[in-house]
């Protein structure tokens, strides 16, 4: 029985076509991911190499002026690239993964973007997550929409029921073959990506695999549900395609549009103007006032007194500090808006598996907006650390040669994001179970 069903399944041209398309795009997508990761890693390697060269050169140029030297020196802070990001590139192509910061006013430095072709950004990435979220459902639909209706339309269903085996079992067998096929194809893709992308077999990778399979099961359950409505093949095809369009194309776009408009981040502009103005206006205001603010922020530096006349680095860095300190409020407003966007996104996504899967994969692969915001916040801490190391040296006008420059190597961000199983997997599993349950319940009398 199984043999015959499998033979029948592989006779269909649709199967081979679907298999061909998925394999070609699958390999292309893994290749794209690989290239993406390699490019990012090359940039990291170059950054590490550059920083050493840069520090050496600048130290030589400004050996006796440590204040001026630190005006030029840049320190790199890097968000490392996970091999998994090749599977789900997410938002990581939009935001720079390397920060090169001077100890000056930070808010004017850390939002600089990478060099990426905006056309590419708009078209989006062809990574494995896109394949899974976008194309797999279509293949599942193409394989399943007429599983039952075709038999009914061709009149073979009556023959099946006459065979004496349970028609329900027969249907499950047919579906089972399709599920197995899709699962195998997906498995092959994951295996390929593991080998090509050198992904370690850890919990993150397993999480991505599990989520992908659950998503596939969701689409099978949706097909199962529609098939058992016992409509014609054409109606099934149109219903399933319409659901695909709705779930994968329209709703995400609508949801995103709603979120963006609900929380516009105008504060970004306000903040960026403020951080400039607050630093620059200090050139013309009372020095004492600037210094008082600075001492209030860093009481440990009170011992460094300002000279009466002329330019001093103590005053200069205090002014720079004001850019950050006084734009704090606007910055927090901006971050809270971004946070609102994130929260609302994940709240709405719970109800729609495609959104859920995309966000979950981005989170696991450290390519989400949250990851970038965490990276920005950690950049602030990194910057503060460097600042505090150099402030006393500058204020005491130490010699540049007295500093151990070897220590200043680029540092890496360690993501502490945690992935919540319940939040990500429960809703989708529930939807799947409800769909299957409802379909079975409705058709109970047919199969008894």
């Amino acid at each position, binding site marked *: 029985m199984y043999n015959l069903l499998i033979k029948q399944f592989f006779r269909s041209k649709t199967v081979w076509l679907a298999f061909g398309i998925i394999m070609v795009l699958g390999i292309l997508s893994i290749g794209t991911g690989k290239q993406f990761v390699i490019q990012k890693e090359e940039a990291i390697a170059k950054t590490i190499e550059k920083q050493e060269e840069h520090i050496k050169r600048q130290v030589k140029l400004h050996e006796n002026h440590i204040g001026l030297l630190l005006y030029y020196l840049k320190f790199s802070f890097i968000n490392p690239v996970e091999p998994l990001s090749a599977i789900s590139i997410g*938002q990581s192509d939009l935001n720079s993964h390397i920060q090169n910061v001077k100890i000056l006013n930070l808010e004017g430095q850390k939002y600089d*973007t990478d*060099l*990426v*072709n905006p*056309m590419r950004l708009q078209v989006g990435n062809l990574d494995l997550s896109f394949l899974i979220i976008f194309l797999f459902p279509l293949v599942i639909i193409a394989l399943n929409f007429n599983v039952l209706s075709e038999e009914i339309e061709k009149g073979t269903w009556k023959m099946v029921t006459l065979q004496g085996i349970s028609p329900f079992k027969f249907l499950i067998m047919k579906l089972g073959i399709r599920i197995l096929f899709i699962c195998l194809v997906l498995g092959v893709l994951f295996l390929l990506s593991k080998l090509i992308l050198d992904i370690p077999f850890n919990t993150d990778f397993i999480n991505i695999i599990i989520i992908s399979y659950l998503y596939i099961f969701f689409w099978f359950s949706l097909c199962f549900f529609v098939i058992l409505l016992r409509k014609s093949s*054409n109606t099934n095809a149109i219903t399933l395609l319409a659901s695909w369009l709705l779930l994968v194309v329209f709703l995400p776009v609508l949801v995103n549009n709603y979120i963006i408009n609900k929380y516009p981040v*105008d504060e970004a*502009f306000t903040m960026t103007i403020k951080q*400039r103005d607050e630093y620059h206006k200090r050139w013309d205001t009372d020095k004492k006032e600037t210094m008082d603010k600075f001492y209030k922020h860093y009481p440990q530096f009170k011992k460094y007194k300002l000279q009466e006349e002329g330019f001093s680095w103590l005053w200069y860095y205090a002014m720079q500090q004001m850019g950050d300190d006084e734009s704090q409020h606007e910055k927090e407003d901006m971050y809270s808006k971004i946070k609102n966007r994130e929260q609302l996104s994940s709240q709405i996504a719970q109800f729609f598996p495609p959104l859920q899967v995309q966000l979950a994969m981005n989170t696991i692969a450290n390519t989400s907006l949250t990851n970038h915001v965490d990276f920005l916040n950690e950049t602030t801490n990194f910057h503060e650390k460097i600042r505090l190391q150099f402030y006393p040296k500058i204020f005491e006008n130490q010699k540049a040669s007295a500093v151990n420059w070897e220590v200043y190597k680029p540092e890496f961000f360690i993501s502490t994001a945690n992935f919540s199983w319940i939040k990500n997997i429960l809703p989708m599993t529930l939807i799947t179970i409800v769909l299957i349950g409802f379909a079975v319940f409705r058709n109970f009398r047919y199969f008894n």
Partner: protein
Amino acid sequence: MRINLVILICKQFFKKTFFSKGLFVLLTLFLIVLTYITVNGWYTFEEHHHVVEHHQGKERQSWEANPDKHPHRMAHFGSFVFRIQHPLSIFDSGIESYTGNAIFLEAHKQHTANFSEASLSTGLMRFGDLNIAILLQLVLPLIIFFIGYASITSEKENGTLKVIYIQGTSIKEVLFGKTLGLFLIAALFFIPALIALWSISFIETHTVNSALVLRALLISISYVLFFFILCCITVIISGKSENSNKSLLTLLGGWLLFFIIIPKTAQVVGNSIYPNVSKIEFKANIENEVLKQGDSHDPNDPQFNKLRDSILKANNVSDTKDLPFNYGGFLMSKGEAQTAKIYANQHNKLIKTYQKQNSITNSLVLFNPYLAIKNISMGLSGTDFNTYTNFLVQTEKYRYMQSQYMNDLQMKYISNEAKSSEGKVHIVKSDYWKSIPKFNYEFVSLSKTLKHQILALLSFSIWLAIMLIIMTKFSNHFKII
């Protein structure tokens, strides 16, 4: 071909489809979504416009509020440019969400345009943007396919095609009639969308003077052609297919291939073949070039020392302090000119690489009407790649002007005795800040936009010709049973 027969078949198809119950639901849904998108997009545009103008005003205010000071302080005070959107971005937002919205312009240093909408958004952003053009480019074709897939096959399946043929109607006339009928149905959907487009172009005229009406006209014509071609394709495929099922599957498969897979793959392949430099390499290239040509910030730079010596000689003095102008200002203006040139060179190279990346997509417009309409629509709506790079060029030009303006002031009015820009000693009157012109953004002119879209426009005429040829030539070999 008898026109009255074509019209008869067209009428029949239109009536039959128009009074089917599905169409009414579909049309209502479409119009509701269209209205929502238009109102929402318009509102967002106005809001954004307001935010940009507010911040641009505020930015200028704080620029002008600067007291008398050393001009070099102003060169670093710098200015922000917040990018204004083209009013037609309500219709087609193109790459708008992915392009930077704020750029900081100061002396010696070129910054990136930051805070693109996408960089502040979650992963949901990547499913796409919501605008009228998406409805027209992705959704309406599907609707046309759904409505038209059985246009011929159903007649075949019912056996009515035979009857029509026996009554003396040629297949050519049937094809043309059905195409026209389908096109009229499609018009029920796209005309309201074009009305939305036209109302934008008539109401938003105050924002820019960039030939809105002409743009809207060209967009309208392109879309009408696009839909007509799609209607032809639908009817031809329905005619070539054995049954409705196959016709539907072919059309849907075609949609997936031409509208989703090819565009995405083309861009991805383009990027893989022509990878662009990373930011760190880009900066390193500039730095190396500066080191090669001479670094004005390095007091021991041989190139600039040579320059100094020749200046001293020309003015018959032995120390820069005795020069009739501020030497620091002079040095910076030379340095600025040099680095700006080097930057422009590297930036041009980068843009060229981007263009190469886009070239695969751009050459595919000949084979893929979807890509053609996408490019035309984006270009004419002022939301395409060329508009954006042009914006960057304009900001850089302003940055250069602003920096050199400050260097000139320094050369003219700052004494060579000045050791630092601190304090109220070596200063210039604040009137000079006010007299520097504001940044005035001009959209790419229509003729330039059209130059980039010639291939896409050409593709429509080629497709149209091919469609007409297929319909007249091959229809004679039609199997009617």
